[in-house]
Every structure is written in structure tokens, then in C-alpha cells.
């Protein structure tokens, strides 16, 4: 064949630099890729994979490539499709990527567990059901869990929670705070993969009763999940490791193991990766210790910094190291700024030998212009600084230096309950610049959520307020503002008012009918658990006094009679309870109501804003609400019927348990789900959210953060684990430096560092020094017309479009494509989709079966 990698580089317009090329060509033996910000590591990973598949004949199925986000995995897959497509068209050799392992560690672990190559006797394994973070929260913060807690530990719940409060140094002993504390420790213990027995022995030696209790609870939690075939994220990894360890051939599954963002991996992941690479030793880790951000999730940057030693321990071989040090993202001045920033800290090890950071990175900007591109504000109070900044942003937009506000990102160490953040938002809005800040304040506090949930309170009812304070009170205050908000809307929309009232009375009717039917059942001396026999029960039930027409009809449809008859024939009759619920069910579910509400002008306007790309903020929020509603429907059940309506059960459970839970966990700052950057708005992000991203213009909203000291979980776990780690006392400092390093290195064309003064404002010493050493121009003095314009990157990896699920879908209805494909609204009825997939999959199985029956004869 005449296809060479050089030719592919040309076709796909990629000119690798020397070190990139070396990395692409180094396939065998351990490889340690140190990739500074913007150094093109995604391309390197992409081309290295192409090199293995095309030029070294590696079956894609034998490559394991783990990324930090699903988005990164998708980008790599799209890139591979494109390049391999070129090769196939040139050489006729097809490549099947569907069996390649590309994805987040979690998704890959899920696949590993069910991979028939490693399961016992190649049997089909029922994969465990995954509890994501929100599921895990509701699993722990549940009546069952707290009851078990009392039973196992023989202690009153309240007393136990007080112990936990003291042990973790929390502010409150609420169930919520206790849940978060327990979850963080549980996860960490699982991620460290400490055997339960060892942990128990250790705990018994500690003479700390609370810790021992937590450990006993953790044991129960583990066994309970195991028995229900459930896993949380941390235990999913544990399960994958166990699967691998129980099978001798597992070390031969993959010829190449590649891990991106290795600085943010944890202990058990490290074990999984080395296990996978133990046979072929072709493990490639990519990352940057300066960008390590996820310690609070159990990540240990030492995995990366100490990789050469660990590699030698596990594989008896030191890796080859390559520094990708040319930055293609940022202008020279920006690169120089963040490089000198990180070097402001001493990273020398306590014993003076070596460093806690990889030194000599020698990061060089590709861009060589000498213009200044880092600016600051006049040092001052938040009130003044926000105005100065907002007016600068206004000028950037007026001068068309950015085509859309979403090219200017504001990054903050933290967004919650932060007056300065709110002021910044208001100042921008005063300049006519919209802001997208779903994490500033709680998500549920956005207007879209208040309006939808306000309407739902009117329809379903809400729990009564009790005499509690704190977050409980705040939640009930929020419920009140939702009601006020919807009142403001219905005042001007009689139809919406009428619709809400109608739905509410439908529910009342169902509830009353259910109670009436129950009375008939009791009066007749039946039990609702009796088998339903239409001949015996139907007439009497129908004659129940005051029953509504709808319910009478519901008891007697032909279709139902037929269905019942069938079930009786097969010896599987319904109970009376089922029939009662069926007759008193409404025709709609929560999502149906949501979509109808969005048909009223207040909401339909939001769809219009998105349709022409004017403002995507509100529709992103609506889409998120649809996801929360569907999650609730999955947790409970989707049909709304009599039994769920009596005693306001639905409203109490939905608002009092579910929405309350969301309201409280909404405090987390560190979501890593893919954040949308709606057109028409300036995004406000936490620095964590900005990981891996770049923006033409970046404003660092605060040049310092509060020091919260050493994380408690870190203190608890450190004595149990036995390996070299960064000293506890250094952790807060190191993590702060890394956090700001990430922030500073996101900017392409221009970077503004806000310089705050005044009470309560922290300016980090490293920034003080930076300001002193570099007299950054003030934004007020900058001639915006001279700044470079934001450009769309030419070298973006091309996206893959499907004929049927993109092109045809869009042509059919662009608006439907927008909602369900682009913004990810969750449809209320999925029957058609499930129907189609089921048929296609079964026909595919049939074809494969026929092919295998034929043998390899003519295939």
C-alpha cells in the first residue's frame, strides 16, 4: 500500500514538531508524556493511535485509551474516524472502532466488567447498576440507610450525626452534612483499595470510637451494595480490578494502554492501569502535574510525579520521558506570566532531595509577538473593579474582538455565595452583557427553575413547613419564592392559570376516587392484595357512590378486560390494588406536564431565543430541568395514580425528599459534567470547570482564595496508606498554586487578572509578587482596537455527522433536532426509540448468528 503517515499528516494538515513526532512514534515500552498547557497532546494521542492501528496492525480492540471526560473521548473517536476513513478509502482496509476501549475510566471499567474475554467461562455477566454522584447521595441520605445506621451501631441517629460533626469539624449535624462527610470518606477508602479486614483491624487499634463506627458503617454499605448488584463510582473501579485479578489472561487483553490526564488519577485506577499493562508493558501516561486539580476526589498527583519509580516497581522498567513543551494556545506574554507564577513557589522536597513538582519544563510559546497580553484592573474595592471590568468587556464586544460573548470567560476559584461574583454579574448585565452562571448560587434559583417548580407546587402540592432553621428554612423560603414567581407569571397569563388549576383538580379527583374505591373494598371485606376477578369485583367497584365518570370508564375498558383475561389465563392475575391504581391514574407524567408548561408564552419565548442562536442560556436551564425530572421518574415510577396521591404523598416525596436533596447538593462547586457555553452569554466558571478548555479572552475574577486548611479526609486516610506523598502541611499551598496555574493558562489572546483590595478579599502572595514584578497594563488604559480578534481554530478536529441521526433528523425538523440532539432534553415518551433499537439489535444478532453458522466460508 502507498499510504504513509507523512501523507496522512498532509491530508489532515498536521505538522508535528520534533517532540510530538517522537511521541507519536514511540509505541513500545512505557512512555511518560509531560504535556504542558496547549501543547497539542490530544493530537499526539490521536496520531499515536493511528500509528499503532494503521502502521503496526494493532487491532483497535486491543487498545485501551482512557480520557478525563466523555467529551474528550468523543473528540478522539471523531478524529480517529476521520483519519482511518481516509486510510480505508485509500487502501480498502476497513477499521472497526466499535470495540476499541476509548472513554472515561468509569465507562471503561463498566465495559471491562462485562467483557466476555475476562468473565468466568466467557459467560454474559449482568453488569452492576451504577449509582452516579446524585444517586449515591440519595442512596445514603435515605430512610433505610439511617435506620440501618441505628440498628448496626446501636446509637440514636441524632447522636451519631453529632459525633460525625465533631469528627469532621463540620458546621452542622444535619443529615445532609453527615451524608456528604460519610460519602467523601467512603469513596476515599474505596479508591485507596484498603482491604476491609485490614481497615477493621486498624480502626480497632485507633481508640477512636467514631472512626470505628464509620468503618463498620462502611462495611455494611459495601456489603449492601454488593448484594443488590449496585456500585458507586469508586467501587466500580474496585470491581473492575477484582475482575482483572481473578482472570489470568486479563493482562493480555490490551497491547497498548494509554491514560490521559494522569495527574488526576487515584490509587485504584493506577492499579487497574498497571495490571492491564503488565504483560506488554506498553503503557503511556499523559499529563501535567501543574494542572492537578482533583485531590478532593481522591486523585493523587504523585501518581504522575513519581511515575518513573512506580513504573519500575510494577513493570521493572523505567519509562522514556518526553516533554511536550511548545505552547500553541497562548500569546507569549501569557505563557511567560503563568510560567513565572508557578515557579514562585518552592517545590523542594522536605529532605532536600528532589522536588514535589517536575522541574525543567522549559515551556515555550509558539507565538512570538512581543505585545503585552496580560492586563489587570486598578487595585480597588470589588464595587469599583467590577465596573471597570464590565466596561472593558463591553469595549471588547463593541470592537468585535469577540464575535460572541461566550468567547470571554470569567474564572473564579469559587462561585457560591460570593458577593463579588454577584456584583460582577450585575455589572456585566448593566452593560447589556448576558451572563451564564448556573453554578453561581444554586441552579434551582434560576428563573426557569423557579417558574417550572412554582407551577408544579401548585399542581402537586408541597410539604408543610416545620419549625426548623438553617438550610431547611432556606429551602422552604425557596419554595415560597417559586410560588411567588409563578404568581407573577399567571397574573398575566389566564390560560396558564386555568391549565394549572385543571391539572390540580384532576389529581384531586383521582385521589378522592381512590379513597372511595378503597372504602368499597373494605366494606365488602376484600383486601387490596386479593387477586382481581372482574366477574366478582367489577360491578361492585363500578357502583361505588360518587365515583367520577373517568374512573368508571377506567375500570371497564374492553382492552383492560382482555388484558386481565390474558393474565388470568397465564396464571398471573392482577391484584385489586393494581386495578384501583390503573383506574385512578392520570394520562400524564411529570415530563408531560413540564413540556406542556413550556408551551405557555413565558417559556416558549426561551425556545425562540435559542432557535436563532440569540441566547442559549434559558434553554440550557430548561434542558437540565427535564433531566432532573426524568431522574425522579426513574427513581420512583412514572405513572401518577391514586395510591401515590393520597396524603399528598407525591408532592411530599417530590419536593420534600427529591428536590430538597437536589437543592442541598447543588452546593457542590466541582461538577465535571460537560458545561455548555451558551451563545449570547459570558460564561462564569469555576477554575475546575475550565480544566482542558481554552477561551480567546479570560478574566480571572479573583487572584486569591480562602485557605480551608488540610482536607479532613486526607488527614484521616494518610496514616493508613503507606507511600510517599506530599506533606499534609504543604497541600493547601501546592493546590492553590496549581489551581491558579490552570486558570492563567486558559487564555489565548488576552488575560485579565482582577486586583481586589478591601475587607475580606484575599490576594494570594504569589499574585502580589507577580503584580510587583510585572507592571501589567491597566485595562482602563488599554486601547482595545489594538487587541487581536478571537479566531475560530482552523485545526479543530473535524466533527463526525451521521446521515440518519444528524442530516435526516435536522431536515425533518430543525427545532426538534435542536432540543433533543443539541441540548439533550429528555423526551417524555421513549417507546418509539426503544422499539427501533430493539428491532435493529435483534436483526443484527440474527445476522451475526447466521454468519457464524455459515463458518468463514465466503465472508
Amino acid at each position, binding site marked *: 500500500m502507498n499510504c504513509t503517515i507523512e501523507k496522512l499528516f498532509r491530508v489532515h494538515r498536521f505538522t508535528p514538531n520534533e517532540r510530538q513526532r517522537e511521541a507519536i512514534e514511540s509505541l513500545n515500552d512505557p512512555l511518560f508524556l509531560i504535556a504542558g498547557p496547549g501543547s497539542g497532546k490530544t493530537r499526539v494521542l490521536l496520531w499515536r493511535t493511528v500509528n499503532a492501528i494503521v502502521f503496526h496492525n494493532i487491532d483497535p480492540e486491543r487498545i485501551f485509551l482512557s480520557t478525563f471526560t466523555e467529551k474528550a473521548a468523543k473528540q478522539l473517536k471523531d478524529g480517529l*474516524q*476521520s483519519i482511518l*476513513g*481516509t486510510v*480505508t478509502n485509500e487502501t*480498502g482496509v476497513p477499521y472497526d472502532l*466499535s470495540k476499541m476501549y476509548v472513554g472515561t475510566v468509569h465507562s471503561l471499567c463498566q465495559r471491562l466488567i462485562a467483557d466476555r474475554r475476562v468473565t468466568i467461562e466467557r459467560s454474559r455477566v449482568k453488569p452492576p447498576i451504577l449509582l452516579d454522584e446524585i444517586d449515591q447521595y440519595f442512596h445514603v441520605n435515605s430512610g433505610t440507610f439511617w435506620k440501618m445506621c441505628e440498628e448496626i451501631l446501636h446509637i440514636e441517629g441524632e447522636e451519631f450525626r453529632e459525633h460525625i460533626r465533631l469528627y469532621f469539624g463540620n458546621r452542622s449535624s444535619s443529615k445532609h452534612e453527615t451524608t456528604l462527610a460519610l460519602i467523601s470518606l467512603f469513596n476515599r477508602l474505596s479508591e485507596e483499595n484498603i482491604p476491609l479486614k485490614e481497615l477493621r483491624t486498624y480502626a480497632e487499634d485507633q481508640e477512636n470510637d467514631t472512626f470505628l463506627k464509620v468503618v463498620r458503617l462502611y462495611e455494611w454499605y459495601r456489603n449492601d451494595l454488593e448484594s443488590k448488584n449496585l456500585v458507586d463510582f469508586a467501587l466500580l473501579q474496585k470491581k473492575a480490578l477484582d475482575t482483572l485479578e481473578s482472570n489470568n489472561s486479563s493482562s493480555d487483553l490490551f497491547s497498548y494502554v494509554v491514560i490521559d490526564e494522569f495527574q488526576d488519577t487515584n490509587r485504584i485506577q493506577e492499579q487497574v492501569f498497571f495490571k492491564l499493562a503488565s504483560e506488554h508493558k506498553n503503557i503511556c501516561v499523559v499529563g501535567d502535574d501543574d494542572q492537578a486539580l482533583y485531590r478532593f476526589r481522591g486523585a493523587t498527583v504523585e501518581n504522575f510525579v513519581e511515575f518513573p519509580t512506580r513504573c519500575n516497581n510494577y513493570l521493572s522498567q523505567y519509562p522514556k520521558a518526553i516533554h511536550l513543551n511548545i505552547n500553541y494556545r497562548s500569546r507569549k506574554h501569557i505563557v511567560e506570566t503563568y510560567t513565572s507564577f508557578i515557579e514562585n513557589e518552592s517545590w523542594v522536597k522536605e529532605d532536600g532531595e528532589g522536588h514535589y513538582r517536575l522541574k525543567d519544563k522549559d515551556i515555550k510559546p509558539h507565538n512570538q509577538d512581543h505585545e503585552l497580553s496580560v492586563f489587570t484592573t486598578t487595585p480597588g474595592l470589588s464595587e469599583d473593579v467590577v465596573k471597570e471590568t464590565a466596561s472593558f468587556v463591553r469595549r471588547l464586544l463593541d470592537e468585535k474582538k469577540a464575535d460572541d460573548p461566550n468567547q470571554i470567560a470569567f474564572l473564579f476559584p469559587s462561585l457560591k455565595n460570593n458577593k463579588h461574583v454577584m456584583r460582577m454579574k450585575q455589572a456585566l448585565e448593566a452593560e447589556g452583557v448576558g451572563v451564564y452562571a448556573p453554578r453561581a448560587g444554586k441552579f434551582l434559583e434560576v428563573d426557569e427553575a423557579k417558574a417550572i417548580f412554582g407551577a408544579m407546587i401548585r399542581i402537586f402540592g408541597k410539604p408543610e413547613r416545620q419549625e426548623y432553621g438553617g438550610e431547611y428554612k432556606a429551602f422552604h423560603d425557596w419554595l415560597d419564592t417559586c410560588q411567588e414567581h409563578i404568581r407573577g407569571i399567571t397574573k398575566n397569563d389566564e390560560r396558564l392559570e386555568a*391549565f394549572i388549576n*385543571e391539572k390540580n383538580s384532576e389529581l384531586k379527583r383521582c385521589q378522592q376516587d381512590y379513597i372511595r374505591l378503597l372504602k368499597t373494598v373494605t366494606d365488602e371485606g376484600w383486601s387490596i392484595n386479593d387477586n382481581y376477578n372482574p366477574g366478582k369485583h367489577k360491578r361492585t367497584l363500578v357502583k361505588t357512590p360518587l365515583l367520577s365518570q373517568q374512573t368508571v370508564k377506567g375500570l371497564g*375498558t374492553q*382492552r383492560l378486560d382482555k388484558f386481565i383475561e390474558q393474565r388470568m389465563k397465564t396464571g398471573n392475575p392482577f391484584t385489586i*390494588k*393494581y386495578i384501583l*391504581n*390503573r383506574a385512578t391514574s392520570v*394520562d*400524564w407524567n411529570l*415530563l408531560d406536564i413540564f413540556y*406542556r408548561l413550556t*408551551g405557555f408564552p413565558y417559556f*416558549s419565548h426561551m*425556545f425562540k431565543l*435559542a432557535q436563532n442562536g440569540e441566547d442559549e442560556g434559558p434553554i440550557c436551564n430548561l434542558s437540565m430541568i427535564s433531566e432532573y425530572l426524568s431522574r425522579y421518574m426513574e427513581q420512583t*415510577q*412514572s*405513572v401518577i*395514580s391514586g395510591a401515590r396521591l393520597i396524603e399528598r404523598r407525591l408532592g411530599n416525596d417530590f419536593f420534600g425528599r427529591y428536590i430538597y436533596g437536589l437543592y442541598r447538593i447543588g452546593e457542590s462547586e466541582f461538577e465535571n459534567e460537560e458545561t455548555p457555553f451558551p451563545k449570547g452569554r459570558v460564561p462564569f466558571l469555576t477554575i475546575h470547570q475550565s480544566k482542558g478548555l481554552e477561551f480567546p479572552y479570560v478574566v480571572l475574577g479573583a487572584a486569591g482564595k480562602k485557605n480551608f486548611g488540610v482536607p479532613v479526609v486526607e488527614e484521616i486516610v494518610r496514616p493508613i496508606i503507606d507511600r510517599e506523598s506530599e506533606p499534609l502541611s504543604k497541600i493547601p499551598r501546592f493546590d492553590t498554586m496549581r489551581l491558579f496555574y490552570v486558570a492563567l493558562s486558559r487564555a489565548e489572546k488576552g488575560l485579565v487578572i482582577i486586583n481586589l483590595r478591601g475587607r475580606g478579599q484575599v490576594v494570594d502572595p504569589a499574585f502580589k509578587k507577580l503584580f510587583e514584578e510585572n507592571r501589567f497594563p491597566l485595562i482602563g488604559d488599554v486601547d482595545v482596537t489594538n487587541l487581536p480578534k478571537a479566531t475560530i481554530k482552523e485545526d479543530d478536529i473535524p*466533527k*463526525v*455527522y451521521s*446521515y440518519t441521526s*444528524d*442530516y*435526516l433528523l*435536522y431536515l425533518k*425538523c*430543525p*427545532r*426538534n*433536532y435542536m432540543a433533543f440532539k*443539541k441540548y439533550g*432534553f429528555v423526551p417524555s*415518551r421513549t*417507546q*418509539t426509540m*426503544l*422499539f427501533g433499537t*430493539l428491532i*435493529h*439489535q*435483534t*436483526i*443484527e*444478532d*440474527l*445476522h*451475526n*448468528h*447466521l454468519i457464524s453458522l455459515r463458518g468463514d466460508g*465466503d465472508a
Partner: protein
Amino acid sequence: MHNPEMIQFIEEAFEENYELLRLEGGHSLSPHIKNQALDQVKNYWKKLRHLAENVSDTEVKLTLPQQKTPAGRIYTIQGVVDVVKEDEHINLYDIKTHDVEYVKVNKHEFEGQLNIYGHVWQSIRGEHLDNASIIATGETNELRKAKKRYSSTGDENYLLEALDKWEPEVYIEVSPERVQEYLDSFGEVVDMIEEHRYEPPTVEKLKREVTENKSFVDHVCSNCDIRFSCDAFKEYALSSSKGHSDFLKFFNDFGTENELADIIEANLEEEVE
């Protein structure tokens, strides 16, 4: 007569897939709809056994990289197709769960698809190609009627006769000279997607018939959750004789009685807490 082992294989594979999909997505089908799905697969096997037995490659991924939109964006087209080899005859075909009438009326949609796939297959991969077709496994009116008669009379001949008459295969002409046209149209759509142009279709399009007695509204809008906020749909619904002025009726459209019963039977659990 139809190979009982194969029917059994289909039933088992179907059940297994259903369970996995249900666990994954948390959604269910009513027994009635589930049966319809199973019937589609069985009918496919009964009617098109010769095709199924000659499938040489299932779910073949075809990729067309380095395409350029009118606005200059680079993108990749991807599609999946089945390949059948029968006595050196090579046929590309794609299975759709629509009924055959829908496919015939909307043939243009599939012409673009199979022409682009055919282009990748022939011109780019340099493989031979004789024919391309769509297999429409959806239940036709005739099949539905025959099934009803069979269930009320027990006479299997009704079914066999209907199956015999059923023509689920729709040939699609592959004409290399038209490929560029289809590719241009694809590129325009990619630009519109990237440029956030998401206006709904016109009311005229909503009224247009997509099959003999079904309009675009019946086919697309009535399954679309966001129709209530859609100007085009609103205009259609409020101007037609049925819905005008009664807005509650407009919002209370939750589907036909049968659809509602399907939803209940799929989702109402025996134990309601």
C-alpha cells in the same frame, strides 16, 4: 416450516436485548408494543430469509472524511449499512422500521443516503456494487388486518398469504452523477447546524401528506414533546377545525386511547408505594 430453531433464536435474542435495554435506559414497552417489535423481526426472517442468509457483513461502517461545507467547515460523514453477497452480486441495504409505503413516498430521503454510502463503497473503497435497497420491516395495513383475522379465526393461511404479498424491499437507484448534489446538501445542513439555525418547518410542510393518509403532523409533530412551544404547530393546531379556540384541548393532547393504554401497561408497576 420456518426453521423452529431460528425462531427460537430470534425470541431469545430479542428477550435478552429487551432486558438489557430496559436496564440501561430504565424504560419499558407494553406487552402489546413489544409483541409488535418481535413480529417485525420474525416477519423479516420469514420473508427475507434468502437475504439474511447471504449477509456477508452486518453493520459495516462507511466513512467519508475531509468534506467541506459551503462555509468552509471540514467534517466527516458516517453511516452504517449491511452488505449482502449473493452469487457475486453485491447489494447494500439498510433496514428501517417504517412501513414500506412510508419509504416509497419518502424515497428521496433514502436515495441520498444510499447514494452517499454507495459512493464510499464503490468510488472510494473501490468495491463492486450491483444494487442498493431499503428493507422496510414496519407492519403494513395488510399485515395488520391479516394478523387480526388470524387471531379471530385461528386460520394461519391469512398470515401466510399476507406475508406472501408483502414487498418490503424498495430498490434505490444509485447514480454516481448525483452524488455531488447529495453531498452539497449535506454540507449545507452541517453549516446550518453549526450556525444555530433551528427554526421549525412551515405550516405548509406540517400539512403535507407523508403517506397516503398521514400528514407530517401525524408523523412527526404528534410524537414531539416540544410541539406546544412551536409556532408552526400552534398555528396548525389552532387553525384546523378541531382545536381552534379551545386551548385546554390543545394542551391536553396526551395521545390516543390505545397509546395511553400502552404507556400504562408498560409503566404501571404492580406495587405502588
